[in-house]
C-alpha cells in the first residue's frame, strides 16, 4: 500500500501525522485531569500506529508505472476492513445494551458500562463506524468506475478514511469516559466535531475533484446520492454542533441554541442524518451495485432522477415530526407531518425502481444470496419508509412516540435496509476488488443472509409488540379516570420482548461475524486467475489513449 506512494508523498504523510500527533500532545499537556487529556494520548497513539505502518514501507521502491492508468482501490480495501470491524464492535455493544434492559446486572456496577454510556457506543459504532466506513469505501469505488478516472489525490483519500476513523474512535472512547453533548447521534464534543469538519471538507473536495476529471459526459445518478450525502451531512453537522466550550482545556461545551430552537435544530439534524447518512448514501450503493450484480440496467433512469430530487427536497422539512405535542409551534409540527407523508412518493419510487430492475431476473435472486441481500434491503426500505410516514402522522405518533415501536422502526430501517444493502454491496465489491472469481464461501454468504433476515424479523416483531403494548398501557384509564397501569407494570409486560430482541440482535451479530470472516478469507486466499474479465487487457480502440494527455 505504501508502495503506491512516491517518496515525497510518504514524507508528507509522515509530516501530517506528526502535526496531528503534536496537536494530541498539546491536548494531553493542557488537559490536566480532564478526559480532554486522555483524548490527546489516544490521538498520539493513533498517529503512532499509522506512522509505524508508513515507516515500515518507507524504503519500498517507488511506483514506476503511471498511476493514472489504474484505479486507486487501497483506501477502499482498508475501508471495507474497518467497516466490518466496526460492525462487529457496534453490533456486539448493541446486543450487550439490549441484554442490559432484560438483565440490568449485566452493567457489572461499572460507570463506563452503564446503559447511558454504552448505548451511544452502539449507535455510533454501527451508524458512523460501520455505515460511515462502508459509505466512504463504496463512494470511492463507485465514483472512479462511473467517472472512469482515478481518484483525485494520493494522500487525501487516506486522510479522509483514517481521519474519519479517528473521529469515531474519539467519539466512542469519550462515551466510556462520560464525554457527551447529550444530543442524539451528535454526542461527540467540540474538538472531535471540529476535526470532523476538516475531514469532511477534504472528503467533499476529493469527491468533487474526481468528478471534475471524469471521462463520461454524464454524472451517474449514484454519485448524485453520494454527493447529497456529503454536502448535507456537512451542513447538518456544522449547524447542530455550534457550541461554546467552557474552556479550551476541557471537553465540556454548551450549545448556542436555546430552548425549543435547540430541540428543533437537533431533530432537523437527527432526521436528516437518517435521510442523508442512512438513506441517500446507501441509495447511491443501491443504484450502482444492484444493476451491476443483476447485470441489468436500472429500470428507469428518469425515475431515479425524479426520486433523487424528491428525497433531497422533502426530507429537509420532515424533522419536526419528532417533536409532536411539544412546545414547537403547531404549524411547524404540521409541516413536518405533511412532508413526511409526501416522502412516501420518492421513497417508493426508488424501491419500485429497484424491484422492477430485478423483474425478469428473479431466478438470479433465488440462486444468488448477494442479490437477495439487496432485494430484501429494498423490501425493508419500502416497508420502513411507509411505516415512517405513518408514524409521523400526529395521532399515530401519540401512540408510538417514546415507545419501543420507534426502536422497532429504526431497526427495520437500520438492520433491514442499511445493513442488508451494505452486505449485498460488499459481497459484490469484495471479489471484484481483490480480483477473485467469487467470495471465499458462497455457502457462508447464504448463512449470513438467513441469520440477518431471522435476526431482523425477530427484532422488529418483538419491538412492534412491545411498543404497541407499552403505548396502549400508558393511555389506559380506569373508570375513575386515573392511569390503569404503573410504569413498572409496563416494564414487566415488556420483559419477554426484551429477551427476544437480544436474541434477534445476537443472530444479526453472528451473521456479521461470519461475513467478516468470509471477506477476510476472500482477500487472503491465493489468487486464482479463473475470471478472464478481471485481468487487465490492451485498451480497446474506444478507450485509446489521447495523445494530448
Amino acid at each position: 500500500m505504501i508502495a503506491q506512494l512516491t517518496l515525497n508523498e510518504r514524507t508528507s504523510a509522515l509530516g501530517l501525522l506528526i502535526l496531528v500527533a503534536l496537536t494530541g500532545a498539546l491536548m494531553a499537556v493542557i488537559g490536566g485531569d480532564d478526559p480532554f487529556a486522555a483524548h490527546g494520548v489516544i490521538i498520539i497513539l493513533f498517529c503512532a500506529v499509522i506512522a509505524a505502518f508508513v515507516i515500515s514501507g518507507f524504503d519500498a521502491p517507488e511506483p514506476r508505472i503511471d498511476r493514472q492508468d489504474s484505479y486507486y482501490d487501497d483506501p477502499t480495501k482498508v475501508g471495507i476492513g474497518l467497516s466490518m470491524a466496526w460492525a462487529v464492535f457496534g453490533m456486539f455493544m448493541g446486543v450487550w445494551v439490549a441484554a442490559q434492559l432484560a438483565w440490568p446486572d449485566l452493567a457489572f456496577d461499572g460507570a463506563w458500562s452503564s446503559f447511558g454510556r454504552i448505548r451511544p457506543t452502539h449507535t455510533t459504532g454501527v451508524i458512523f463506524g460501520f455505515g460511515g466506513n462502508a459509505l466512504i469505501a463504496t463512494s470511492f469505488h463507485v465514483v472512479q468506475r462511473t467517472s472512469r478516472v482515478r481518484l483525485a489525490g494520493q494522500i487525501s483519500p487516506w486522510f479522509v478514511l483514517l481521519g474519519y476513523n479517528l473521529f469515531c474512535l474519539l467519539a466512542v472512547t469519550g462515551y466510556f469516559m462520560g464525554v457527551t453533548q447529550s444530543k442524539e447521534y451528535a454526542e461527540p464534543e467540540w474538538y472531535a466535531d471540529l476535526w470532523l469538519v476538516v475531514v469532511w471538507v477534504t472528503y467533499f473536495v476529493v469527491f468533487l475533484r474526481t468528478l471534475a476529471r471524469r471521462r463520461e459526459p454524464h454524472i451517474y445518478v449514484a454519485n448524485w446520492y453520494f454527493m447529497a450525502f456529503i454536502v448535507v451531512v456537512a451542513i447538518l453537522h456544522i449547524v447542530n454542533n455550534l457550541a461554546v466550550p467552557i474552556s479550551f482545556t476541557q471537553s465540556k461545551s454548551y450549545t448556542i441554541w436555546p430552548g425549543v430552537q435547540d430541540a428543533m435544530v437537533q431533530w432537523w439534524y437527527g432526521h436528516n442524518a437518517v435521510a442523508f447518512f442512512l438513506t441517500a448514501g446507501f441509495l447511491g450503493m443501491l443504484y450502482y451495485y444492484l444493476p451491476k450484480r443483476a447485470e441489468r440496467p436500472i429500470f428507469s433512469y428518469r425515475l431515479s432522477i425524479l426520486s433523487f430530487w424528491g428525497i433531497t427536497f422533502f426530507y429537509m422539512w420532515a424533522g419536526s415530526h419528532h417533536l409532536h405535542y411539544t412546545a414547537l409551534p403547531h404549524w411547524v409540527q404540521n409541516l413536518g407531518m405533511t412532508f413526511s407523508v409526501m416522502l412516501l412518493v420518492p421513497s417508493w419510487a426508488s424501491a419500485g425502481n429497484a424491484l422492477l430492475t430485478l423483474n425478469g431476473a428473479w431466478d438470479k435472486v433465488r440462486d444468488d444470496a448477494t442479490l437477495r441481500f439487496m432485494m430484501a434491503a429494498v423490501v425493508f426500505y419500502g416497508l420502513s419508509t411507509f411505516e415512517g410516514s405513518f408514524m409521523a402522522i400526529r395521532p399515530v405518533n401519540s401512540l408510538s412516540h417514546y415507545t419501543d415501536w420507534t426502536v422497532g422502526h429504526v431497526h427495520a430501517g437500520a438492520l433491514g435496509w442499511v445493513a442488508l444493502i451494505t452486505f449485498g454491496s460488499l459481497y459484490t465489491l469484495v471479489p471484484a476488488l481483490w480480483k477473485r472469481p467469487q467470495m471465499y464461501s458462497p455457502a457462508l454468504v447464504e448463512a449470513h443472509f438467513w441469520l440477518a433476515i431471522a435476526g431482523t424479523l425477530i427484532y422488529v416483531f418483538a419491538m412492534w409488540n412491545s411498543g404497541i403494548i407499552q403505548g396502549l398501557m400508558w393511555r389506559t384509564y380506569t373508570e375513575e379516570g386515573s392511569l390503569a397501569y404503573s410504569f413498572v407494570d409496563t416494564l414487566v409486560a415488556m420483559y419477554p420482548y426484551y429477551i427476544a430482541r437480544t436474541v434477534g440482535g445476537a443472530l444479526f451479530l453472528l451473521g456479521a461475524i461470519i461475513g467478516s470472516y468470509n471477506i477476510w478469507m476472500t482477500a487472503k486466499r491465493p489468487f486464482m486467475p479463473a475470471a478472464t474479465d478481471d485481468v487487465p487487457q490492451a485498451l480497446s480502440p474506444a478507450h485509446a489513449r489521447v495523445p494530448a494527455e
Partner: protein
Amino acid sequence: MIVDHDTVVHFAKSWGLFYLIGFFAVVCVYTFWPSNRQRFRDAKSKILERDDKPCR
C-alpha cells in the same frame, strides 16, 4: 419592518411554497427534456461495461 414569528410563517407559507413548486417544474423539465433521453439511456447501460482500468 420587524421580523417576528408571523413574518417567518408568512414567508414559509408563500415563497416557500412557490419555491418548491418552481423546483418541481424545473426537475420535471430536465428529466423529460427530449435531448436528454440518449444521455440517460447511455448512462444507465454504461455502468455495466467492463471497468478494470480508468479511461484516458
